[in-house]
């Protein structure tokens, strides 16, 4: 194609340097890829949750639940609902935590357990009670029958007509599989979903005569708000009547914070990608100084030059963004998989939205264009006289503001860091998108501030590394350190990009490690048990009846046991957890009171409550006052007998009642957690064996020693963090490419110098090492500052997350910090390999004659 317009020169420039173009575009590709991946994950999550929730609770117009959302109530309410005017149909359901006991064995030889949400439904109204379509067989009619979601059935190799074992509070029950349902998104987040006949479910789960919700279909032409009002008036304060869509909206609101955090991590990759573009375009401009000068001499205006660089950037951005979106599809798949692993919520169907597609491409192009502004402006400033100069010489950025940049950076950090602290301190009580966004702005501000300070740090840091490098790499090491300080702006820019990724990793590892460490420490402090019994599956809320604790306490050597049951209360957006405890609780848990009567615990029997410190503070509650909770029996008031200093299970926000009260007011009787204390001098091995023998009848539960339990918590934690690390890792990878780019720039600029070194007797290896060492210096600067900034940010996060009662102790992430520095070394070496090769291959004669 013949060049027909001046602007096509940009395209020609991109095409003529494919390697550079690729290297520059990689930042955009990865950045846009991860942004698109996260957007798609976000969409998929929202869409999956929304559809699941709207379907799970039926295609009803209105949904009736007990006040607080999770309690049960008597089934006579259904009759009342049906007899209310303009109610066309009403479908009761009893939602139960259960589990599926599969024939396959896990690695311990025990049967594989899968969590299951079981709905007790009436055969005639099952289709209204849940909106999932029946794909095979029928709804359960009578007796031990089960209709299961198709995804689970397929995975477990179950077919209609098979017998299935289901874990109930009394032990496993055998049901016949009579039908299959199709769940949008493939499954209920990896949790099986089943339907059983109402009377059978009530009986098997100790819930005779109870239901947990009613889906209501309104008569044709009736006004929804009126029917809703009528039902509310009729049922009274113990119930909430909601439009089905309200539930769905609440679910997506709860997801918002998480999605914003994800986008932020993804955004940093793009931010770092912008650094890369900025660097690469600056280099291109520098490299083409004479060419640009010539174009100016031939009559190109400044605007034309600026435009041509901008066009080049826009093309690059578009190219990178489109590739990024393609790449992002794979990333989205990987993220959805990782999300499933981390949060025990499997999603099998991706929701690709055109919005995410367009947004990712637009953001990619805009970010590239933004990063190109300064290099383009610089290109426009190139004097036509440059065309006559013998050799392009790089002139650093304006000295004037370069001198004040570090001060400005410090000021920026000084403003942003306290802001993050302030926000973090108040975040847990005030969580919305805007606050999140301003916190993120604070973090970005901090990064920018630090980036502005880095040029001033390059020289001292390089000097610091110099003796070490000399020791490690000989004289090349020392020269490399000096080389890294020759273009401080570029070294600083490259190091800054690395700094951002590394400091995020360190900050989050500090936060995660501290929360985990604190939990483990308080377990140590306040838990006096030796063993605990918990559901096998992480995502299960299976319960057990009183039989299990009774049998366990009969095991010889068991000194004390305590059972915890729980429910959650939803009041608008706020969710609180209510625990039922028994008289064994103080023997095993260390009850430390911040306020209240000395024998506060024994007051629970009389209907009093204990609350966590954080909850008391956020609601302004004091001992002696009363706390009002919505219950299926209507709003109830409980005197607060005491405020708990450490609230281990509730994380500071728990409300503790006696188990009898929890059963009376919330119909919650199944135990979820059993702690066992062994008598002094007992053979623990034998005790563990015997308890395990008991648990064989309750395969959905398993026994953990304290050490195993801690390891289990740590494992869950790490799984969730791996998900975040994966996203942050992308920005580290992008910045590593930045190091490659900078090093190739160094090689290009120093062709002559390298030639001279070779001429005076440096070997190819030595010249190559010079470049690699420079890469190591740059990436070590970035990683070192990243570790420092990350530690500080992590400290702020940790101090901030201790808002209210649950104070998190700061644990320094030593291992992560060491890994980060090691990563710095390796990034430097690997990034240096290609540029070093081209330096080593420099033709001596040509290089020396290079004008």
């Amino acid at each position, binding site marked *: 194609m*013949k*060049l*027909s*317009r*001046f602007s096509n*020169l940009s395209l*020609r*420039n991109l*095409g*003529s340097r494919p390697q550079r173009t690729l290297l520059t575009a990689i930042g955009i590709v990865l950045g846009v890829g991860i942004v698109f991946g996260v957007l798609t994950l976000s969409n998929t999550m929202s869409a999956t949750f929304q559809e699941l929730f709207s379907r799970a609770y039926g295609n009803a117009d209105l949904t009736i639940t007990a006040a607080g959302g999770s309690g049960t109530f008597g089934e006579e309410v259904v009759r009342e609902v049906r007899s209310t005017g303009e109610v066309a149909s009403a479908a009761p359901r009893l939602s139960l935590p259960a589990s599926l006991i599969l024939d396959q064995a896990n690695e311990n030889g025990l049967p594989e357990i899968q969590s299951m949400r079981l709905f007790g439904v009436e055969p005639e109204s099952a289709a209204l009670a849940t909106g999932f379509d029946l794909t095979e067989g029928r709804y359960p009619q009578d007796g031990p029958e089960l209709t299961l979601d198709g995804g689970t059935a397929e995975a477990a190799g179950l077919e209609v007509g098979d017998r299935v074992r289901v874990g109930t509070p009394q032990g496993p029950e055998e049901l016949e599989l009579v039908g299959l349902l199709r769940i949008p998104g493939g499954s209920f987040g990896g949790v099986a979903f089943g339907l059983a006949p109402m009377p059978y479910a009530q009986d098997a789960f100790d819930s005779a005569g109870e239901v947990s919700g009613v889906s209501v279909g309104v008569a044709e032409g009736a006004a929804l708000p009126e029917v809703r009002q009528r039902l509310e008036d009729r049922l009274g304060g113990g119930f909430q009547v909601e439009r089905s869509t309200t539930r769905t909206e609440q679910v997506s609101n709860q997801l918002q914070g998480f999605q914003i955090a994800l986008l932020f991590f993804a955004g940093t990759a793009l931010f770092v990608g912008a650094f890369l573009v900025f660097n690469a375009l600056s280099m291109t401009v520098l490299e083409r100084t*004479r*060419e640009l000068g*010539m*174009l*100016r*001499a*031939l*009559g*190109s*205006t*400044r605007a*034309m030059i600026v435009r041509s660089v901008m066009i080049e950037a826009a093309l690059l951005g578009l190219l990178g963004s489109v590739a990024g979106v393609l790449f992002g599809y794979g990333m989205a798949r990987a993220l959805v998989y990782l999300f499933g692993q981390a949060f025990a919520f499997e999603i099998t169907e991706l929701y690709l939205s055109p919005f995410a597609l367009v947004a990712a491409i637009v953001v990619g192009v805009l970010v590239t264009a933004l990063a190109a502004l300064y290099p383009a402006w610089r290109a426009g400033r190139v*004097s*036509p*006289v440059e*065309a*006559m100069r*013998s050799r392009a010489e790089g002139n650093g950025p304006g000295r004037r503001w370069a001198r004040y940049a570090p001060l400005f950076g410090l000021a920026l950090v000084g403003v942003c860091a306290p802001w993050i602290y302030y926000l973090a301190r108040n975040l847990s009580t005030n969580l919305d998108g805007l606050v999140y966004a301003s916190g993120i702005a604070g973090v970005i501000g901090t990064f920018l501030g630090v980036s502005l300070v880095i040029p001033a740090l390059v020289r001292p840091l390089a000097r610091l590394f110099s003796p070490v490098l000399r020791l490690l790499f000989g004289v090349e090491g020392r020269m490399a350190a000096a080389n890294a300080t020759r273009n401080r702006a570029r070294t600083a820019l490259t190091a800054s990009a690395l700094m951002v990724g590394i400091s995020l990793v360190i900050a989050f590892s500090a936060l995660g490690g501290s929360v985990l460490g604190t939990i483990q420490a308080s377990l140590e402090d306040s838990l006096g048990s030796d063993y605990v019994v918990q559901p096998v599956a992480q995502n299960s809320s299976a319960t057990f009846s009183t039989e299990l604790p009774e049998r366990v306490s009969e095991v010889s050597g068991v000194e004390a046991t305590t059972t915890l049951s729980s429910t959650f209360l939803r009041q608008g957006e706020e969710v609180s957890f209510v625990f039922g405890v028994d008289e064994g609780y103080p023997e095993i848990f260390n009850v430390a009171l911040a306020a209240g009567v000395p024998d506060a615990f024994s007051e629970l029997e009389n209907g009093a409550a204990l609350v966590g410190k954080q909850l008391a503070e956020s609601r302004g509650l004091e001992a002696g006052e009363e706390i009002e909770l919505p219950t299926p029996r209507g709003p109830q008031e409980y005197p607060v007998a005491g405020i708990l200093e450490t609230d281990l299970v509730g994380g500071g926000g728990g409300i503790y009642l006696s188990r009898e009260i929890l059963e009376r007011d919330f119909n919650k009787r199944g135990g979820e957690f059993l702690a066992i204390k062994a008598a002094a001098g007992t053979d623990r091995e034998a005790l563990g064996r015997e308890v395990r023998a008991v648990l064989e009848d309750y395969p959905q539960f398993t026994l953990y020693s304290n050490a195993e339990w801690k390891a289990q918590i740590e494992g869950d934690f790490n799984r969730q963090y791996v998900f975040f690390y994966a996203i942050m890792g992308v920005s580290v990878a992008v910045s590593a490419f930045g190091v490659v780019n900078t090093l190739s720039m160094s090689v290009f600029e120093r062709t002559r110098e390298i030639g001279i070194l070779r001429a005076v007797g440096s070997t190819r290896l030595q010249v190559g090492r010079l470049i690699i060492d420079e890469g190591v210096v740059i990436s070590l600067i970035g990683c070192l500052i990243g570790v420092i900034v990350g530690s500080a940010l992590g400290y702020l996060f940790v101090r901030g997350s201790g808002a209210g009662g649950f104070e998190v102790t700061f644990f320094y992430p030593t291992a992560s910090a060491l890994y980060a520095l090691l990563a710095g070394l390796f990034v430097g070496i690997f990034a240096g390999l290609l540029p070093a090769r081209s330096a080593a291959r420099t033709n001596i004669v040509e290089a020396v004659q290079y*004008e």
Partner: protein
Amino acid sequence: MGNESQIAVRTVNLAKTYGQGPTAVRALEDISLEFPGGEFAAIMGPSGSGKSTLLHVLGALDRPSSGEVVVGGVNLSGLSDKKLTLLRRKRMGFVFQFFNLIPTLSAEENVLLPVLISGEKPAKYAGRVDELLDLVGLTARREHRPDELSGGEQQRVAIARALVRNPDIILADEPTGNLDSQTGTGVLNLLRESAARYEQTVVMVTHDLRAAAAADRVVFLGDGRVVDELRDPVQDEILERIRTLEAPG
């Protein structure tokens, strides 16, 4: 003084100073010169005599510190960067020592570059490009990239490029500086012939005696001032003047 309309470029008390205070360098001082239309002028002088700076200022690539440059009756003082650019585009052609071709463009495309820059239709110049490529003897190599051409060929492309929009003035900075003497002579003849054919004024900075001898007039600079002039020079004369100029004291 000649008729204003016949003077292609004129300078009045031109001075150019770099830097300020005690470290200031006076590159040009009080230069008043006239280059009549159609003249082929050479500027010579030792390194640092200011000859390149003079060429930059004449070509509107750089601004003088004081004094005036008048190109075709237009006084350049006070013109904006944009106006200067447009003036360069319309009236000037440049030939550089290092050829300065765009490496990604073919010979033909490089010749067309000023046309593209000025936003004109390349088709309009198809005949002109053919003519120029023929003139510089590169018709057969028009599709080649600069790195596939020899130094002399590259410089001939650059000359064709300078001529394509038929400028009034061609400014050449050491056009033979990077060429061997035989190729240099060829390029010089080309420059001279084409300037004569299209009635253009050529101002050339050079170190090369033979190049200077091809000129109608040689202007000698020393320490930023015009120190001598020679009309219709021959090589020996030039050499003699240079010796005098460079002689100590």
